[in-house]
């Protein structure tokens, strides 16, 4: 009973925290989040993050790897897992004439894993899919007059993802996995346009587009032990079909006069242009050498250009990671994991002839919590996104993520209190 009480408490905490995914805070401060569905959030956390985001070929008996649904069958000795995390990010954004510093951060994910049988494992949770947070100022000239018009753009919102993963162990070496996820959320943009000739009378444009839709993923994983000292090779792959997110948008245009008088000029509510979440596929390997070192490498491709808009381009992601695998010894620091990673994301947005790519390196540690088998994964990422060419913006960022992985040993142990 006590055990289930704790689970209920944890679930309550999660319900309490869930709204913080829903745009209550900006999870990003990137002008590039104006495009598409916003800045795409990481698809996996904890260990994956420190390994450059790789994970198609990773299996771990104590930690969830939600990048590959087939991998969760590796959790064969635990009944229940709970993972969550928080992140904080420091961003230095530079345009050709200006530098800005931002701090942003939030809860990264809430994931629960359940083992139903020795061959069937389920995982469900919630995490951001994309984040929007931008503040821009643009200017134009009045038509037929030599004076400026400014526009202040503020974007908020983003899409959240509620997902369910199922892992099926077909044989000792081969697993299949699948995911169904429900995406929903609002892309909110407010624009204030004001002419220098009359700054007291700005025009406000407010649009709120609520998108929702389901996505599906299928995955496999194959493992081959190459010797008895713990050398093995895991190959994984993932495939997700094209899905359409339909949306409903509300547009309001208000004309303000003076400090407190507003004329409502325009209101429109209707179907929004659907967003095509592209066909996505990828594959990767994980090679463990004598139970000591792990090398992971992933490749992923998403055909965003299906959206037909020139600003969408196909996205390719290369991820590499190296881990010093924890050893079962009495020395605490030998029981920690040490990870480095590299990731190159070609980006899915093209603007002014430049694709908004992203390159990052990561460093991480997995710190076991005393004897429980639970773990705290600390990851530090440093990266660079975008370009300063053509009046665009380059972001240099440093991001720290702390992810917690709680296992049922941790819950069970309390029985002996």
């Amino acid at each position: 009973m006590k055990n289930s009480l704790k689970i209920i408490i944890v679930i309550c905490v999660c319900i309490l925290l869930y709204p913080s995914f829903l745009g209550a805070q900006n999870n990003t401060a990137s002008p590039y989040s104006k495009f598409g569905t916003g800045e795409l959030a990481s698809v996996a956390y904890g260990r994956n993050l420190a390994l450059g985001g790789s994970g198609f070929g990773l299996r771990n008996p104590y930690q969830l790897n939600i990048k590959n649904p087939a991998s969760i069958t590796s959790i064969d000795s635990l009944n229940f897992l709970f993972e969550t995390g928080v992140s904080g990010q420091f961003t230095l954004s530079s345009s050709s004439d200006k530098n800005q510093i931002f701090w942003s951060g939030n809860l990264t994910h809430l994931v629960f894993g359940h083992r139903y049988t020795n061959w069937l494992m389920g995982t469900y949770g919630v995490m951001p899919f994309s984040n929007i947070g931008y503040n821009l100022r643009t200017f134009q000239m009045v038509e037929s007059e030599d004076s400026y018009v400014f526009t202040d753009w503020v974007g908020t919102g983003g899409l959240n993802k509620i997902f369910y993963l199922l892992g099926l162990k077909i044989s000792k070496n081969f697993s299949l996995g699948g995911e169904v996820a429900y995406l929903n959320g609002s892309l909110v943009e407010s624009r204030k346009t004001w002419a220098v000739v009359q700054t007291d009378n700005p025009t406000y444009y407010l649009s709120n587009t609520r998108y929702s839709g389901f996505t599906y993923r299928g995955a496999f994983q194959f493992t081959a032990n190459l010797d008895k000292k713990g050398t093995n090779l895991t190959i994984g792959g993932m495939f997700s079909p094209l899905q359409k997110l339909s949306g409903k948008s509300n547009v309001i245009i208000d004309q303000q006069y003076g400090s407190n008088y507003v004329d409502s000029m325009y209101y429109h509510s209707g179907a929004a242009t659907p967003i095509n979440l592209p066909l996505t596929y990828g594959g990767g390997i994980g090679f463990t050498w004598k139970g000591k070192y792990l090398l992971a490498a992933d490749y992923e491709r998403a055909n965003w250009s299906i959206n037909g808009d020139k600003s969408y381009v196909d996205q390719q992601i290369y991820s590499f990671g190296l881990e010093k695998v924890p050893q079962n010894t009495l020395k605490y620091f030998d029981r920690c994991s040490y990870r480095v990673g590299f990731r190159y994301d070609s980006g899915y947005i093209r603007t002014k002839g430049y694709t908004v790519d992203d390159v990052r390196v990561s460093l991480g540690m997995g710190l076991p919590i005393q004897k429980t088998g639970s773990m705290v994964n600390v990851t530090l990422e440093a990266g660079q996104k975008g370009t300063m060419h053509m009046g665009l913006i380059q972001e240099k960022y440093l991001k720290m993520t702390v992810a917690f992985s709680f296992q049922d040993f941790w819950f069970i142990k309390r029985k002996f209190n």
Partner: protein
Amino acid sequence: MIKLKFLIALLFALLFYSCQYTDDENFQYNVGNDFVSDPVKVIMIDTLTVKTYTTAVDSVNTSRNDRFMIGRAENMKVVTTCESYFRFDPAGEYNLHSSSIFESANMILNLDGYSFGDTAKICKFEIYRLTEDITVDKETEYIYNTTKFAHEATPLATFSVDLTDDKLDSVVVDLPELGKELFDLAYNNDTILSDADQFKARYKGFLIKPADDNVSSVVGFVANPDSTLSPKIKIRYQDNSLDDDLSFSFEIEKYQTVTSSTTSANVNYYGSNYFVNDYSKLIGKDFPTGEGKLSSTETGNVTFLQGGLNLRTRIEIPTINNLYFLGIGSVIKAELLFEPVKGTYTKQSDLPSKLEMYLVDKKNDNYGQMAMVGSTDMAYAVLHYNNEFKDETYYSFDITKFVVDEYLDNGDPKYSLLMSMPQSGINGNVDQLIIGDQNHPTNKMKLKVYLATY
């Protein structure tokens, strides 16, 4: 359990710590149109037709006013003539003896600094005695700028004013004959001096007007009966005493206080200004009054505004609905820009610093003064005087509220605008503003409408 609580608390702590903030309120990027482009465009339209007219009023009340305006001035072929009518109360205090001897008598007029016209020219004025009683309108108890009272054929006295003399602050006019007559009344203790009505029946009043052939400027004199600087007739006499400054004065009639059940007002019954404009060189007729209007096309592409006579400029924007052809949008600003016609002013003080705008219907009936859009503050024209380049002097008038209302109204224009000199104190000056219309060759009026289209 302790550890669980600790971890939950830690989680919360981390969550709140990670809440986003920025280091600076002003954290936008100035990225221009390179990055994203606002579909809201602001268009400036200056092609709407603006029709302008001059319209006059029947009359302006000019009694109960603290200024007498006298003189004649010409501006842009319009000749403005101002005359003043007033009368005196009998002298109140005097102490004459049998040995008192009349010495001299003067009418003293104090300038109050106001002038309109060509101040370089000498003003020639004439004082007449009235042969008709000064009367007020029975209903309103006012005298109007159109009222004249009969006077003697020959002037009692003439005098001139040279406004180029900076030190000139008063005018002293000899009135020997009239002065002797008034002295004798006092010397003889005539009962007429103790009966104001009888006195005013005999001395009906005075008219001061410019000499018929004199076109120079209009000069302002102090006329507030409570002021010691108001017109008076001062009579000097000698006595067998060492005091060589003996005098007594006939002062301008005081305000009479009329107290009704609701109000108590000072009413100066019998001092007034007569104003008239001669348009014979311009149009050969008077400007229409009431609901009448005369297009600027008939007056050399100019319109007039003037105090005293209250000439006003009616502004019509008949094609305002054309803004709809530019798409869905909103008016963010509408500004009327116009210029005083070159040659009709020589210095900044010739130009009124402030103009008012009224909403009127087809019959010039007033629907109230125009406010600023989104505000209860009244809208006024702003004079942009350019000392260096006078030709670049102009007025700007924010008429956004009018254009927004007409634009939102969506129907045919119901209202027009009437621009005037400040209506408060309109009878205290004859300042003139002559502005060019949309087709004036050099001083064109412009209407700029800024439309945000989406």
